[in-house]
């Protein structure tokens, strides 16, 4: 009887506190929050891997889900600026207002690349805070996980020890995984690549890939036939091994250039769910590296 009561008391003490409602802007942050908060959080993912995160609509369902969120976990760095401000405004939820504890922007905690020296839209869709596609370097997740855990504790102090423990586990496993991936990816060092969109600086920086050209004349602008021809010409001087694109991007420009330059077009999952294999954060990088290595052959 004693044991039974103890058990029920423990159950009550863990579930008496309401589960955290988390609104994750992108699947990678939903996956990370899942690893760090597990069943302490109920996570809604606002976008999927096949959507262009710049170009999401402020749909009614997103507003409805933001209404009850205790914590918003997004990339920031202006990635979501075409839709998130409307969601925040219309959801009338001060808990997740910008600047508050419930508004977590991952990009604030990593070293940003490609911060423009001057802001001018003649340079295309550039982001003042730097390139927002930070999720292609697994090392960034260590800093984000650390900051996110602090934020979870700030919002849900009752589970402080739980979150700390989860972070310890994550750090150990993630560091081990990074070491494994770096070993696997060793043949990719110095390999010349093309990118369809300026979306891989963090991946390039991590694995030492050498990006020789982009298929978009300016970030966010559609590659034209004339410009692709120009890129093809440059490829003869500076050959590349493969052309990279994210799962959500149209395959045509990559395929066009791959066919003519006799190189491989590699579609990367880019985030969790981008390919059938990329089912979680670990699988995301397993699959990314497997696909890059396949592109070498």
């Amino acid at each position: 009887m004693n044991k039974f009561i103890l058990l029920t008391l423990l159950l009550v003490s863990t579930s008496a506190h309401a589960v955290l409602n988390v609104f994750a802007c992108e699947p990678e942050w939903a996956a990370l929050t899942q690893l760090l908060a597990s069943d302490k959080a109920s996570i809604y993912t606002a976008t999927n891997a096949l959507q262009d995160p710049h170009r999401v609509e402020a749909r009614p369902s997103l507003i409805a889900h933001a209404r009850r969120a205790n914590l918003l976990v997004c990339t920031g760095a202006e990635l979501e600026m075409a839709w998130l401000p409307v969601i925040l405004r219309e959801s009338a939820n001060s808990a997740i207002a910008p600047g508050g504890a419930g508004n977590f922007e991952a990009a604030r905690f990593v070293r940003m690349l490609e911060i423009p020296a001057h802001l001018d839209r003649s340079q295309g869709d550039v982001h003042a805070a730097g390139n927002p596609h930070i999720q292609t370097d697994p090392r960034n997740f260590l800093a984000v996980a650390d900051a996110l855990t602090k934020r979870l504790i700030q919002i849900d102090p009752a589970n402080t020890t739980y979150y700390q423990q989860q972070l310890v586990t994550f750090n150990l496993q993630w560091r081990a995984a990074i070491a494994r991936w770096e070993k696997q990816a060793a043949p990719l060092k110095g390999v010349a690549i093309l990118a369809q969109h300026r979306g891989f600086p963090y991946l390039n920086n991590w694995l030492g890939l050498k990006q020789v050209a982009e298929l978009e004349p300016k970030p966010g602008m559609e590659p034209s036939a004339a410009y692709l021809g120009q890129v093809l010409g440059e490829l003869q001087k500076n050959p590349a091994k493969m052309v990279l694109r994210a799962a959500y991007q149209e395959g045509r420009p990559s395929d066009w250039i791959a066919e003519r330059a006799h190189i491989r077009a590699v579609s990367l999952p880019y985030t969790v769910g981008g390919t059938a294999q990329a089912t979680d954060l670990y699988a995301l990088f397993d699959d990314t590296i497997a696909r890059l290595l396949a592109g070498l052959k």
Partner: protein
Amino acid sequence: MFNKTYLSVAVAALLCHPLASLAASDADLQAIREQINQLKQSYEQRIAQLEQRLQQAESASHQAESVATKAQAAAQQATSQPAGEGAFNPALSLILGGTYGSVQRDPAMPATGFAMNANPGHTQGFNLGESELGISASIDPDYRGVATLALAPAGGVTVENAFVQSSAPGHGLNLKIGRYFSGLGYLNEIHAHAWDFVDQPLVYASLWNNQLGEDGIQLKWLAPTDTFIELGGELGRGRGFPGSDRAKNGTGSGVLFAHIGDDIGIEQSWRVGASLHTTRAENRTSTGVPDIAGTPGGVSNSFSGDSRTAGLDFVWKYAPNGNTANRSIKVQGEYFQRKESGQLTYNLITADSYRNTQTGWYLQSVVQFMPHWRTGLRYDQLDPGTASVGALNAGNVISNYRFMPSRATWMLDYSPSEFSRLRLQLARDNTRQGLPDNQLFLQYIMSLGAHGAHQY
């Protein structure tokens, strides 16, 4: 999550049960406390050990870490990025737009049966559209301010929007005070630069003078449900058509609206709405109104009375995989019915009772068939209704026009980037009886400055 809630409810119920409380005698409770304490202590010890091990592991791995990672850690303090609307505070945006219009009929001529309505019309030839200057920023943690100034091509500035907004009341309440576009219908809140066609549907042009702007107060409530349910109400001055400005205390117009919306899978989303608007017109004078006698150039009539409009709207959107960047389809439609009753003064001389019901609707679809390219079709129709005219004016005022104005429109637009759009629009306008009109428009819309987020 639900299972857990049920479980905790069940457990709580169990604990409250007299059997459970009987079982938990003082001695038992003491034993439980001790066990919990023991559990807590051993737990804390284990965490401390784990933390120590982590620190050791970290210090070891830090030494081995590459220079790049160290630089990364060092640069983490470089986090001066602004939150919210962007790098600008306040967020400034300027919309530049212009059209070239070619129509065969005088655009000042109203649709048949709608001479006593608004007629925003079109402009022929090259025409600088309204440039729009938008300024918005958070005022303090509770309030946000928005001002949209329309710069008219002929000079002069009009205040399109100027409101403060706050969700400080909490509980999903959103308050707006100032001048805003009313939340009725679907298109009413959408700014001209975000329209899918060069012009508004006929029903908006005739019944709302393109868009109903209000000076007043709006309160919206968002239900705490996974399905989007929003209820709103407005009290306003009622200056704009169909109301008229008057000097009085109290309110001049009222609006109620409700919106429901959701997703269907990852590819489809929808929103439906209903709205109700009431106002009063005082000496709302219209010129050039045709009469039974066929007075050349028409006569001037003045209406005073109540105006009540009910509307239904829906929008449905589809994009393969939910990715709107490449291909998407949008279908929308709205219907409005306006009942007006009061006194009509024919030729500004003969006053008698007047009652009428006007309706109008449109259905349109816009398809993005490849990245950066969209095409759209729209069909509009109006019904001027059959008016009940008092005996004094039965021989003066036309009560039944026996004609339903309609229009079919096609558009094609190209957006080289998110900030620029070029558009071609062709329309077959059949709004004036016996005077069909072929219309052509070319338009550019460019936005510079802060990246404004768009509404659904």
